[in-house]
């Protein structure tokens, strides 16, 4: 029972943490001028000033 509870809360924690991390990353990408569209693009190409 303890193992099961530990496992369940672990899974929930990982899922919630991963979602939070993903949304925070998208937010940061957008702030840096990147794409927040969830397309996974890593390009950071912007016009030179």
């Amino acid at each position: 029972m303890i193992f099961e509870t530990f496992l369940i809360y672990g899974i929930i924690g990982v899922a919630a943490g991963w979602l939070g991390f993903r949304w925070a990353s998208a937010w940061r990408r957008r702030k840096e001028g990147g794409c927040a569209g969830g397309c996974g693009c890593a390009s950071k190409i912007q016009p030179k000033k």
Partner: protein
Amino acid sequence: MSAAEPGLTVALVGNPNTGKSTLFNALTGLRQRVGNYPGVTVARKSGQCDCGDGLKVELIDLPGLYSLSAASPDEQVVIDALSGHLADDRRPDAVVVVIDATNLLRNLFLASQLSELGLPVVLVLNQADVAAEQGVKIDAGLLSRRLGGVPVVLTSAWKGEGIAAVRRAIAEALRLRIRMPAVEWPALVEEALADVSAGVASDLGQTPSRADVERLLFDSTTSVGQRLGWEAARRDAVIRAARDKVRRAGYNPLAAEPLIHYERLRKLLEGVVQGGGNRTGASAAVDQVLLHRIFGPIVFTGIMLGMFASVFWLAKFPMQWLSSGADWLKAVVAPHLDGMPMLQSLVTDGMIGGVGAFLAFLPQILILFLFVGILEDSGYMARAAFIMDRLFSWCGLNGKSFVPMLSGFACAIPGLLSTRTIEDPKARLATAFAVPFMSCSARFPIYALMCSAFILPKYGAGWESVVMVGMHCVGLLFAVPTAFVLTRFVLKVKPQPFVLELPRYQMPKPRDVLWRMWQNAAEFVSKAGTVIFAITIIVWALTYFPRDPAVAQRVRAQSADAPAEVVSARIQAAYIEQSWMGRFGKSVQPIFDPCGFDWKITVGVLASFPAREVIVSTLGVTYSVGEGAKADSAHLRDKMLEAEWTEGPRRGTPIFSLAAVLALMVFFALCSQCGPTVATLAQETGGWKWAVISFVYMTALAWIMAVVVYQVVLRLV
């Protein structure tokens, strides 16, 4: 040129609809990377091209453009990329210009302009087979000689003909660095260009490139001056004086460039092109019907209806196989977790049940994208944009708006990014506001679930297709009046002409269509495996906990005489009702009560705000918690059909009545339920103001229309 020389890049440019992407696919195979130029253009596609003898180059597919006079942000990126003015992206080592062999003169204008960049060039005369069919004979050797030995290759990328010759030509262009001779300007125009160059040199202390000088002299909208940091007043004075010289040469300064280039190209093509009287032929004949004022919209509606009917029909069996696969998996996994009921519920009800419910729609999504790909590649999508423009241009949307709006039917994000093709910032904003209304593929699963569970069994396959098409049109019906108010009264957009090149009809290339279908499928599956999977676990936890044993004891005490199965069902219902999600759903449900949503649907609606597809997996969890391996997708539909109101004036009536089902679909058709879309809208409009307005407006509209639909249908049926 050493085979080991690293980092060579070659840019692929050309007019739209020249078969550039098909050539790109043929040259790179499936070794491609797709990304975005954030803040700059729609997409940055690159791939590795093997040019033989161990020479491998990075091929970059740039957006199509007609000239170097950038009118829109996506055209600007091509110019910036070719001239090496993009940060983190160096100037390409060579340019492959893709030219429609059936329209050499117009397509060569871009190549002629590109000659000023001083890059090695390869001219690819694509669709050579079509040109031959039209009786056009092209002497590629003569054209190459007249262009100073620039490689000229005749290809048919669609048929895969001439691809090896293009690879060899790229290698040759890189090795010999053959540049296309620049245009010879009349003396006074040449003087004007020299004046502008001298002005930049004296004011900024740097010698500008020839291409930059030409943009400064010939374009009224160029951003080169700002990029160079040339002070506006001084710049205007120098350019005004230089343009006066162009006038003295007998040219309008803003029309001089194409006139002089075309003069040169006509001479260049003398004897190169022969024949070709029947250019339009079969396409024009087909367009007589497909673009007809009356028949055009009828055929368009017929194609859409046929497409959705086929999607349902073709996907029926694969969907059953996927559902059976999920059920089999549950049946296999469940016995291994018998001693751990909590984990068993998480794995079977949550993970397999939730994600399985979502993945079951993969066949429909695949078939939908297959049809969309066929329509795009056959040339019909451009006709669809033309028909839509004629139907809706009264609302003040720019004609170019319909391409982003059509993209929005797949996903709002590329649709929003492609608004960058619209020159007028106000028209761009109005279009960006309208795009999220389009019925993206993420809405598809909820329509499909509701139609297959409630419309098909009661009203048949015909009505199922009608409802599906109707739901795809609901967004458009509200986007158009919204755009009308926005463009006429808020933004006051000036009407702009819509120029759309209608590509020739052609047989879609299976490899290209299947490749795009695969990309979309991969995205769908990756979403199921990541975001949907994680949200499903959270929703399961919120629906499962707290699990107080006193609840079960209380229900058992109250149901002493009931059969064991009934007691078990009552216990599960009591657990769900007192779960965190149950409590939250019940507290918020009064807001959605006028729409006919019970607390479980309310939970699904609320959980769907980050991504609307979540509704299906959420319903999959909320309706199957505690059911374990029994909870297959047919079981989910049965549970939804059995669901009844347990209290209030509707007690004993089905929750999923026709009114509630239609209201739910209308709510999803109109509501702004996609975090990335809201973020992208903020990014594209330069702040959160319009993103927040769009979110509030769409959500309020969705709620109002859901109430109207529910209340009206409830009274009528």
